């Protein structure tokens, strides 16, 4: 349970960042978000769809994204997510953190 939790935590952080980034393009529903992430990462990143929705709900509770029912491109009712102002700010911070972290890791790996 504990190890599972820690792996999840790591995933969570990254997934949150990816979701926020994906939503910068505008409001979209959950499936579109996962498609977009996969598309842009050229299928390198596979979104675990089972954990996508808990992450969306978590972000909503934190007030970083908001959800509204709307009509999808096929005329079906769907839940559309979009960034809030605080979500936008969060994205900047997270993105910067991620950049620093990955640079640092890259440096460490090069040194070794």
């Amino acid at each position: 349970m504990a190890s599972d939790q820690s792996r999840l935590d790591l995933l969570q952080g990254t997934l949150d960042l990816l979701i926020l980034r994906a939503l910068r393009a505008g409001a979209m529903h959950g499936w579109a978000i996962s498609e977009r992430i996969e598309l842009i990462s050229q299928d390198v990143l596979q979104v675990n769809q089972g954990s996508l929705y808990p992450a969306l709900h978590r972000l909503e509770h934190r007030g970083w994204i908001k959800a509204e029912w709307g009509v999808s491109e096929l005329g079906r009712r769907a839940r559309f997510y979009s960034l809030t102002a605080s979500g936008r700010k969060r994205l900047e911070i997270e993105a910067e953190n991620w950049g620093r972290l990955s640079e640092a890791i890259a440096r460490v790996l090069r040194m070794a």
Partner: protein
Amino acid sequence: MWRDIVLRLRALFFRRRMDDELQEELHFHIEMEARKNRRRDLDPAEAERQARLKFGSVVSATEECREQRGMSSIEILAKDVRFGLRMLRKSPGFTAVAVLTLALSIGANAVVFGVINAMILRPLNVPRAESLYSIHRVSDNSASQSYPGYLDLRDRNRSFEDLAGYNVLRAGLDAGENPSRVWLLAVSGNYFDVLGIQPHLGRVFHGSDEHGPNSAPYIVLSHAYWHSRFQDDPGVVGRVVQVNKHPFTIIGVAPPDFTGTLLFFSPDFFLPMVNQEQVEGTSILNARGTRWIFMTMGHLKAGVTPAQAAADVNSIGADLEKTYPKDHAQMIFALARPSLYGDYLGRPVRAFLTALMLLAGLILLAACANLGSLFSARAADRSREVALRLALGAGRMRILRQLFTEAVLISLMGGAIGLWGSVELLRWLSVWQPFPQFPINLPVSPDANLYGVALLLALASGLLFGAVPVRQVLRTDPYEIVKSGSIGRIGRRITVRDLLLVVQIAICAVLVTSSMVAVRGLVRSMHSGLGFEPRNAMLVGTGLEMAGYRGDAVPTMQKRMIDAMETIPGAASVGLVDLPPLANATGNGAIVFTDETTDLAPANAAATSMIFKISPDYFRAAGTALLSGRTFTSHDDKDAPHVAVVNQEFARKIFGSANNAMGRYYKRRDGTRIQVVGIVEDGKYGNLTEDPEPAMFLPLLQSPSSEIWLVMRSNADPQQLTAAIKSRLRDLDAGLPSFIQTWNQGLDLVLFPSRVATVSLGLLGVMGAMLSITGIFGLAAYSVSKRKRELGIRIALGAERREVLQAALGRAFKLLAFGSAAGLFLGILASRVLASIVYQATPRDPLVLAGVVLAMLLLGLLATWIPAQRALSIDPVILLREE
């Protein structure tokens, strides 16, 4: 944060819908995925299968999403409440003390707020009350006008929509049977239209009904009087009744919530003031200098400010002063609210209520401080539980939340009980009529504002005293406590908390002293020095004038009344007096001169004396002792020489001594020489606390009065007497209004201030006692739980019970003794002030001193009972094992 709460609330209340929406969302996703697969030429079933495979378990995703909503705060709250209730049930003593304390202090605040709400905050019960203003003289706050003055203001102003006026009058109403004395408002014809009052039944009169003096003999009943006197009979409309022997037609009934525009005062009915002559006997409609209209008022026109209206009215006033210099003066006005007669009543009422609210607020604050220390003691007792929970990983916030939940639970319980009590009290107050002969009451029925304020106060006080142990909990180090037990740091210094407690105890002792002094004084004042005996005496007020008696008919009728009363079985003696002593605050007085004075100017007067006009048997009926000489006989009539009976003080003031006075003469302002034929004991005439006043008693036959009270001495049951008196009077004249009460009831008015003072001191004393009890309780409980280990060791080493108690409670009792002594001393000083309100209030009374000491001791015992039991029940074996 806010968003989170909204979402959580939504999750709690719309769980089902949220779940449905979640399912819809997840299935939409799978369908989109399947669609994508289909486009890659998979057959529909396979496309669906792969989509589901990729998604994984819908159930676990659902579960995880739900988890993201978190355990709802409300579920946590429910858990905390259950746990809190269990903890409170485990210490019923603490719970009872805390709940009772809060009930009393929140109740006190709610009552005071209820009165403020009704008197000051709530607008008058008429449509558009916000633009209704009355016109007051700046010089003396009076709103009175003469009738011509009112007409000028009404017709010449450009600021009011219309101007109405009213006056308060008393009259006799004869509606066929049971004639009675009533209070009425003589109002301008436009009164109801100005106020926008629609009748409950029938119609109201209008300005167009008035066509000069006595032209509008109409009555509009108040709803309450219609109910009490006519039993809600709708057939009453159209009936002709007699007001002071003049026929008036009842044309309608006012709505239930309308009782005129003066709070406190509820008239029985309304009639047009153009008919004033029929009620009062003489016409004053044309008297420009007689300001008899009590108040004028109206709605301001839209857009007109009170200041503009005042300027408008003032210019009319200046003009009137110029035109009628003899009749009008000081016509400078300001606008005010009519409900409390502008600032005249409004200012003292507001000041008094504000002071009361502050006091009540202080009581609540002190109660919270005390409960706070009680709560700290509890938190200290539970430090092991808290430490255990912290060690098991509970957050400090969670533990604080639990403590706050307990505090708020207590405060809500206390608040609910306090609110219930205050609502009952306010209901009782609003139907209470302190003086049966005056239609005065306090319209203070509770409303939604009151409930809101009580709830707020309860929550606020819960959070307030719940916050006291916060620091203590935050500092708790689970490791230290579980290892070594609670660390008893015993403060020997005098802390702010100690000082606060001493002050509370002292105030409590002052209040207990004062209320005991007041009660003793009140009891004593009922039994001595009145100059008459109110027990076993009936007072019957009659208005011969109201029944149309004039001139010689008055004494004849009075004689017949006495004769009729004397036939009542059990009537020992019957007398008449124009106005009984202590019947109202002023009484009748006149200046008198010594016989030698020739220039009868007021400056040369020997004294101002009370005057009572009486029948021969009055002294016997009233129980006034005749010390020497004789009382009157039926021969002391208007043809006989003028005689008087005087009291001792009169004799001393005019003649030097009582012995000198018999047979001597004195003079009245008109030069009449009067011979003193008897001397009676001194008494109280205007109020209970007055110094001895000179009084003269004159025979009714020589100075007639149509305002007459019958005094009947009898040991019979007052209710039977009342019935008998009523029937005898009806036999004499069915149209004679009367008002029957025992003489003790007749004293209600003069006893009112001292009774109110006594009751309020008593109530404050109870509050003070409650504060002291919780304060001492808190301190004692705290010191016992802090010193548990020390006490346990003492017990183990063989300390006596007495020594244990001394160690545990010595400090509390020291503070109690100190505070009580200070309070008793201050209380004795304060009683001097009290003596001006309550007759014969003196603290130099062994019963009072003993009572105070006993009360404070009892209070201390009560407050330390539970901690003492706990200190004694400490078992060193268990204690050593535990810690």
